[in-house]
């Protein structure tokens, strides 16, 4: 209940409040994409030769691939030569402690409500903060180190833990998996890396906070989480960007590897700048997220609250390879004004007795288009696979659209697959009932929408749940007249 209280108290109204820009000197690559740029990025990051080769190989693959046209979204042609692929704030290569981090930066993250100061242990969250292309600070490193947990920027992992990076990078999302994955593999700048050793239960939430700051840049970060046998970790990801008139590209990759009996919970509150009411500006969010339940009894759970971005293209997926493994996907996707979202999941059942659960709640308002796209695939050898999917859509007004594209492919007779989808609207009688108890219409809508999304929001760690509920209210502001 105290969760609800916080939320209610924080249900305030304002425009996109993360739209500020920080004036920090940046070290940028020239616009465009070619081998030289990739060499430039790799050199800037002082990468070993194998990493450069990996990137160049990805770039070759990318050139052979085509941008996917199947998502239910429309946007003008992207000129990939008009993007800056690397932008780093000018600070010492790797700050060894927070005192070395530009105070301007700490201030930026403070404004976002992210504390980089380790003293604030109360929050109980270890943060890796990524501004534009570079990780600026990772907190609680030492404390986690005592347990053998590695939590650092991706660049650091390349240097410090090359054996792990080499083994797992690209193993879940192959370089040539799709157009954006290949692009990311060629030009990724930074991101987070987490390794949880055998039998360790990570005592705090690990969190990455992504922020696009510079203009004309793309952000291409990469996250790799490795959970060894019997380990547990809960990982949070948040993101914001300044308000800009031009569209900016964000093409990220998240890979999760879960060994026997390991459990990884990955939560996202995605709040990139969605563009203005007329659809000008906003982030193109083309993200590949995938986890493999490699060992038996492992579990990967994705929770996402998607409120931002002009365009979202994102399908956090689970490959259920280990017997008795479990995949979950909980999603709230809210679109308003001119936003377009095409998001969902893939659950690939390979092992025996694998289970998956999909709960998707879409809310469309304004002139937005909101699509759920999902695949549940039961391979012939996946005995006793179970899936339950629930895809609900809530529409606000007759200018928006809600679409569901569920693919269900069953190749084993012992599978039990259930899929349900409904469409509804907020009832006038519900709003009147709230009004009669003294609750204004805008708050009534927020209350009802949060109720509708409850099953998903309940999956989020508490700090995130509060932020998520506020975001829902903000995103839908002015959508009911």
């Amino acid at each position, binding site marked *: *209940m*105290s969760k*609800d*209280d916080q939320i*209610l*108290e924080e249900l305030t109204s304002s425009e996109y409040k993360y739209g500020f820009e920080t004036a920090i000197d940046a070290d940028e690559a020239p616009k465009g994409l070619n081998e030289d740029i990739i060499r430039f990025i790799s050199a800037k990051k002082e990468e070993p030769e194998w990493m450069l080769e990996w990137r160049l190989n990805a770039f070759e693959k990318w050139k052979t691939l085509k941008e996917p046209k199947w998502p239910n979204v429309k946007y003008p042609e992207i000129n990939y030569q008009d993007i800056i692929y690397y932008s780093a704030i000018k600070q010492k290569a790797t700050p060894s402690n927070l005192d070395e981090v530009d105070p301007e930066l700490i201030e930026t993250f403070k404004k976002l409500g992210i504390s980089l100061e380790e003293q604030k242990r109360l929050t109980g969250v270890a943060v890796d903060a990524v501004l534009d292309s570079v990780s600026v600070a990772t907190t609680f490193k030492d404390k986690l180190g005592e347990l053998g947990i590695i939590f650092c920027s991706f660049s650091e992992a390349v240097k410090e833990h090359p054996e792990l990076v080499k083994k797992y990078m690209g193993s879940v999302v192959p370089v040539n998996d799709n157009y954006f994955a290949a692009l990311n593999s060629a030009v990724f700048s930074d991101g987070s890396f987490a390794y949880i050793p055998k039998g360790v239960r990570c005592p705090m939430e690990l969190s990455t906070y992504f922020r696009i700051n510079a203009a004309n840049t793309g952000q291409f970060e990469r996250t790799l989480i490795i959970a060894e046998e019997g380990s547990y970790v809960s990982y949070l990801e948040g993101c914001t960007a300044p308000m800009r008139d031009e569209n900016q590209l964000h093409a990220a990759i998240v890979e999760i590897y879960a060994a026997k009996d390991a459990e990884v919970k990955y939560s996202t509150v995605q709040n990139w700048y969605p563009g203005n009411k007329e659809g000008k500006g906003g982030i193109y969010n083309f993200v590949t997220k995938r986890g493999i339940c490699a060992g038996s009894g492992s579990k990967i759970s994705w929770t996402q609250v998607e409120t931002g971005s002009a365009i979202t293209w994102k399908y956090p997926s689970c490959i259920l390879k280990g017997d008795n493994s479990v995949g979950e996907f909980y999603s709230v996707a809210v679109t308003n004004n001119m936003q377009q979202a095409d998001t969902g999941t893939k659950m690939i059942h390979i092992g025996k007795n694998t289970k998956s659960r999909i709960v998707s709640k879409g809310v469309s308002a304004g002139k937005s288009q909101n699509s759920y796209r999902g695949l549940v695939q039961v391979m012939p050898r996946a005995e006793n696979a179970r899936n339950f999917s629930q895809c609900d859509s809530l529409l606000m007004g007759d200018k928006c659209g809600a679409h569901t594209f569920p693919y269900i492919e069953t190749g084993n007779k012992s599978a039990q697959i259930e899929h349900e989808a409904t469409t509804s609207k907020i*009832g006038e*009688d*519900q709003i*009147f*009932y*709230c*009004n*009669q*108890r*003294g*609750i*204004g*219409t805008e*708050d009534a809508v927020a*209350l*009802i929408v*949060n*109720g*509708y*999304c*409850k*099953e998903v929001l309940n999956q989020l760690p508490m700090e995130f749940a509060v932020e998520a509920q506020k975001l829902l209210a903000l995103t839908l502001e002015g959508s009911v007249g």
Partner: protein
Amino acid sequence: MLKVENLKASIEGKQILNGVNLSVNPGEIHAIMGPNGSGKSTLASVLAGRDSYQVTEGSISFLNQDLLEMAPEDRAREGLFLAFQYPVEIPGVSTTNFLKTAVNQIREHRGQEALDAVTFLKLIKEKMKLVEIDNSLLSRALNDGFSGGEKKRNEIFQMAVLEPRLAILDETDSGLDIDALRIVANGVNTLRNKDNATIVVTHYQRLLDYIIPDFVHVLYNGRIVKSGTKELAKKLEEKGYDWIRENETTIAG
């Protein structure tokens, strides 16, 4: 407190209220009775501000303000409460969360500080006893999957928490068994004081055995055709609404 004058209202072009006059003072309990279709629920809805009804004539003043000019939430914030005949289900929204939002918005309207979690919790614990409702009801989604009786009790519980100046109970007795009826009535009687007033809208006399009205009005064809004391309710029970009908015909004739 409430003054309704020559109120005429219609829904989808169909006239339902044909000039209702009603005056309610603090401390009073009024019962409005009448056969089905006489306009009882319409009157309750118009007072609460449901916008599917159009007021075509007349006026309503509530605490010296023009009620018809006010949005439904402002009426509520000024202290008007409607216990719905058919309480609405809102999935995923807990009763507690819902009430906390309501209480604090009302407090904000009155320039009071928002209640913190602890004080609020204390408040609802206290009110729960009044209507004998279970703790689990608070964490369940609002009216979602509630039985008819639970919904009605939840309405009275909300009334207890929100402490309205004027409460309108719209057919609160319908669908209640005798135990629930007693609990509901007990809640209403306990909450009664010299500053608030209650309008009980009902079809049957039964509820009035438990909530003793100061005045009884008979609504027929959208008008109050007879007013009296609780004896009138008894008489209605004995003779049925046909008695009114005959009476009305005689008057009209």
